[in-house]
């Protein structure tokens, strides 16, 4: 059988990857040099790079305060996602009357954009007394349908006999979830963590609606405030973007193996 060479595929993939990375590299280069993006000819390597734009960003706005706020909100979202989505995913992996209708309802909720539900979400948060609080910011993201289905597909792969054996041993449903199923679903957990973290870290509209104090603002709001205060500082603006991107990038790089495994689980039969 004739084997085709792999190098054309690798070459094409390398080329496409480079194209995808160009905007990111451009942002990084501009944050180190501050050069005009319309400079011609454009230079690939930064000329006279320095870190002073990062220092400008650190002192121009209360960056550390915004960072702490984002970390707290993201931590609440990630923890809530793992607990609530595991429970929802377990219930969807069991058989019960009306299961198909529930799944269709969940899937149809994914079609509704968040902007449509923002007014009732605000009224509910206000009635709960959670306006201008960390929990109020985290509440809409505490459970996401995509991540519920990630857990569901992970739990579906666990043999039913294992769950039955646990039930015979006297474990309740809650203990079955957290003692038996969750330890076997590391990929699903990693996927939940990454998706929940990225969505909460980059969330702009909801914190903008419910936050009143500047001290409670998160990084995306801080970036918006930075833009309104400082109009023409490309280097500092791009430095801010890098500082906002960095935590999410680190989390993804650490958990990428489990993340990709979690997304592709069940994609191939056998």
């Amino acid at each position, binding site marked *: 059988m004739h084997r085709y060479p792999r190098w054309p595929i690798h070459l094409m993939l390398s080329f496409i990857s480079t194209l995808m990375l160009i905007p990111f590299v451009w942002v990084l280069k501009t944050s180190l040099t501050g050069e005009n993006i319309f400079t011609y000819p454009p230079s690939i390597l930064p000329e006279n790079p320095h870190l*002073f734009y990062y*220092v*400008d960003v650190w*002192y*121009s706005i209360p960056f550390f305060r915004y960072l702490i706020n984002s970390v707290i909100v993201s931590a609440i979202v990630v923890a809530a996602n793992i607990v609530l989505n595991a429970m929802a995913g377990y219930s969807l992996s069991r058989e019960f009357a009306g299961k198909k209708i529930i799944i269709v309802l969940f899937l149809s909720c994914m079609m509704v954009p968040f902007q449509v539900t923002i007014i009732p979400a605000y009224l509910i948060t206000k009635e709960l007394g959670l306006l201008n609080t960390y929990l109020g910011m985290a509440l809409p993201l505490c459970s996401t349908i995509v991540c519920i289905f990630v857990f569901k597909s992970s739990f579906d792969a666990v043999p039913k006999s294992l769950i039955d054996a646990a039930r015979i041993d006297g474990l309740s449903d809650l203990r079955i979830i957290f003692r038996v199923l969750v330890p076997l679903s590391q990929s699903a957990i990693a996927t939940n963590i990454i998706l929940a973290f990225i969505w909460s870290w980059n969330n702009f509209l909801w914190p903008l609606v419910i936050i009143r104090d500047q001290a409670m603002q998160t990084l995306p709001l801080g970036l918006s405030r930075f833009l309104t*205060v*400082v109009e023409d500082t490309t280097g*500092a603006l791009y430095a801010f973007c890098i500082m906002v991107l960095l935590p999410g990038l*680190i989390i993804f790089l*650490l958990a990428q193996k489990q993340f990709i495994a979690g997304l592709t689980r069940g994609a191939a039969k056998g």
Partner: protein
Amino acid sequence: MLRSVLYNRYTITFGTIALLAMVWNVYVMVNDDGIVAGRVVASDGSPVENATVVLSEKTLLVTSPRDKTTTDADGRFKFSGHTVYHVYLEAYKNGVGRAPQKDYHLYFRGQNLNLSESLQIEKTQ
């Protein structure tokens, strides 16, 4: 179990970040006396006594004067206790001239700065 926790990539990554942050903060604590020291010379290289040196803070928006001092017989000046991170220095002496304004970027507020080049006063026309 302890070994698996310590050699975990999350522990190593976040532990390294925490360690670097601690080392940096110690360095800042040791070097944030807010000292800016330098020398003012004339165009022929001779020191300029009683020249006025103004230290300003330059932010992304404005430049605001923060302190003022005069040079000694050797043309040397020293500011202490400043809390700026972007220093803007100008020196002048009535009847002699004015040095071109220079800015110096620092890595943190109040970082000590010893100017490697003197501020050279040029005759005003």
